[in-house]
C-alpha cells in the first residue's frame, strides 16, 4: 500500500473530467479519470446529476399516481418499470390483476426489453464510433413504439398499466401489429448483429476487454445481463417467476467469457428470447377482463395498503426491486427502489483500472447506463 502511494507521487497523472456533458457517458455521468498518458489509472464516477427525488415525491402521491415516476426511471423501458412497481403495489394493496392483464403485461414488458436493448445497441455503436447501426436500431425501435402508441397512446413514457390491470385492452389490430413485428424483426436483428460482429475492429475492441470476474460481480451486487455474462446463471424471471413467466418457454442466455463481447452477445440473445416469449404469449393470451374493478374510476385514489412488500422483476438492466412500505393510508409511507444500473455502475471503479480511455468508453457502454434509474 505504502509503496504504491510512493509510486503515485513520482508519476504525474493527468486528471481529466469526463462529463456530465460528454458524448459517451449516456446522459449525465461524470467520470473523474486519472490518466497516465492514454492509460486510465483510476476512475471515480460521480453521480447525482439526475437526482429527481422520485422516492420522495412518491410518498406525496396516491398509489396509482406513483406510476408516472416509475415510467421515468428507466425511461427507455418504461413498461418494465411499471411491471416492477405494480408487482409490489398490487401485493401491498391486495388487488390481484386478472389473468388477461398479466399476459398483456408480459408482452409489453418483453417488447419494452427489446426496445431498451435496441437503444443500448445503437448507443454502444456510437460509443465505438460506428455511426450507422444506431439508425437501424432506431428504425426497429420505432416500430415497437408504434405498437405502444397504438395500445396506450404514448410513445415512451407509456403509463399503460394501472393498479389491478391495464388501462386499455388490446384488440385485433394490435395483435396483428405485434405478430407482424415478431415475424420481421428476427431478420433485421440478425442484420444489425452482423453489422457489429463481422467487423474485426469491433471484435478487437471488445474481446478480452473489461473482464468482470463472477465473485467480484456478486460482491458489487451486479445483476442482469452483466451478471449472466460473467457466467452466473441467474434471472429473476426463472428464479422467482412473476406474472406468467412460468407458463412460458424461454432460455436465459449465459456466457462464461466475462468480457465486453460476452455482455454484448448476452443482450442480443436476450432480444431473440424476448421475441420468442412475445410469439408464445400472443397465442396463449386468454379472454376475460383486463382490469380489476376494485381499482377503477374514483376508487383509484381510495386504495389503502399496509405492511411491507419487496418485489423483484427482471428489467433490461437487471434485478429491479421495489420496496413499498404502507401505513394504512392512501399514500405510500416509504418507497425504495433497487436500481440495477446503480450497482452495475459501481463496478466501473473496479473495471476501469489500467485500461485505455477507449476501453473505458467501451466498458461504460456495455454497462448500459440509464441515469433516470441510477439517480432516480
Amino acid at each position, binding site marked *: 500500500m505504502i509503496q504504491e502511494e510512493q509510486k503515485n507521487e513520482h508519476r504525474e497523472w493527468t486528471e481529466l473530467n469526463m462529463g456530465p456533458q460528454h458524448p459517451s457517458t449516456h446522459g449525465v455521468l461524470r467520470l473523474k479519470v486519472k490518466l497516465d498518458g492514454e492509460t486510465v489509472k483510476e476512475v471515480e464516477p460521480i453521480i447525482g446529476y439526475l437526482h429527481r427525488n422520485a*422516492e420522495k415525491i412518491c410518498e406525496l402521491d396516491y398509489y396509482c399516481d406513483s406510476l408516472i415516476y416509475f415510467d421515468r426511471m428507466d425511461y427507455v423501458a418504461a413498461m418494465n418499470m411499471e411491471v416492477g412497481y405494480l408487482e409490489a403495489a398490487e401485493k401491498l394493496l391486495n388487488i390481484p390483476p386478472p389473468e388477461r392483464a398479466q399476459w398483456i403485461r408480459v408482452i409489453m414488458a418483453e417488447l419494452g426489453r427489446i426496445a431498451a436493448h435496441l437503444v443500448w445497441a445503437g448507443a454502444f455503436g456510437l460509443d465505438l464510433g460506428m455511426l450507422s447501426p444506431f439508425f437501424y436500431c432506431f428504425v426497429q425501435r420505432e416500430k415497437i413504439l408504434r405498437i405502444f402508441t397504438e395500445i396506450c397512446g404514448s410513445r415512451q413514457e407509456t403509463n399503460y398499466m394501472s393498479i389491478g390491470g391495464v388501462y386499455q385492452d388490446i384488440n385485433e389490430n394490435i395483435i396483428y401489429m405485434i405478430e407482424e413485428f415478431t415475424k420481421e424483426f428476427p431478420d433485421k436483428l440478425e442484420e444489425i448483429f452482423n453489422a457489429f460482429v463481422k467487423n474485426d475492429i469491433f471484435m478487437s475492441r471488445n474481446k478480452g476487454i473489461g473482464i468482470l470476474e463472477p465473485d467480484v460481480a456478486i*460482491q458489487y*451486487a451486479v445483476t442482469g445481463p452483466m451478471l449472466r455474462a460473467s457466467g452466473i446463471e441467474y434471472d429473476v424471471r426463472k428464479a422467482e417467476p412473476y406474472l406468467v413467466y412460468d407458463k412460458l418457454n424461454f432460455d436465459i442466455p449465459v456466457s462464461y467469457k466475462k468480457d465486453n463481447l460476452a455482455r454484448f452477445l448476452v443482450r442480443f440473445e436476450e432480444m431473440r428470447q424476448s421475441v420468442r416469449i412475445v410469439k408464445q404469449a400472443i397465442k396463449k393470451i386468454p379472454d376475460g377482463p383486463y382490469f380489476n374493478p376494485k381499482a377503477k374510476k374514483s376508487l383509484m385514489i381510495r386504495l389503502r395498503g399496509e405492511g411491507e412488500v419487496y418485489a423483484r422483476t427482471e428489467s433490461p438492466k437487471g434485478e429491479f*426491486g421495489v420496496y413499498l412500505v404502507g401505513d394504512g393510508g392512501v399514500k405510500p409511507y416509504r418507497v425504495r427502489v433497487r436500481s440495477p444500473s446503480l450497482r452495475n455502475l459501481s463496478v466501473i471503479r473496479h473495471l476501469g483500472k489500467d485500461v485505455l480511455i477507449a476501453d473505458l468508453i467501451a466498458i461504460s457502454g456495455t454497462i448500459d447506463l440509464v441515469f433516470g434509474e441510477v439517480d432516480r
Partner: protein
Amino acid sequence: MVEVLEETTGKDGRKVLKVAKENLLALLSDLKDNGFTHLSLITGIDRKSKLEVVYHLHNLTKNEYVVVKTETLDERVPSATGLFKSADWDEREQYDLMGIVFEGHPNLKRLFLPDSWVGHPLRKNYDLSKVQYINMDENGDDYATFDPGDGW
C-alpha cells in the same frame, strides 16, 4: 449463533429477521458464510421516533431470500462495507437521503447531493418549502446554498 429478536414472514413471503443493531454485523457475516453473498438493497425507513434499516440479502445458488431488519435511535448503524462491496454506495445513498450514519464506512459522503446540503430529504420532517440551490466552484465541485446567487 447470533441472537435474533424476531423471525416472521412478510406479506410477500420473505423471511424477515429482526436483530439488535449490536448483533447486525455478526448476523450479516453469518448469513454471508451461509451463501447469502448478494446484498441487494439497504433501505432506511424513517419511523419518526426511530430509524429502521432493512437489508435484503440473497443467496444466488440456493435462490433464497432473507430480509434483515434493525432499528436505531441515534441514527447510527455499523457499516457493512467490510462484508459487501455493494454496501458502499447503498450506505452513502441512505446517509445522503435518510441521514443514517454508517459507522466504519471508509468514505461516508453524500452520493447524490453535494456535501453542504442541509437536511436529509427523505426524512419525514424535512421541510420542502426551504429551497436550496446548488452552485459550482472553480474545480467543478458543487456546494449547496440557500442563496440563489449568480446564474440563477
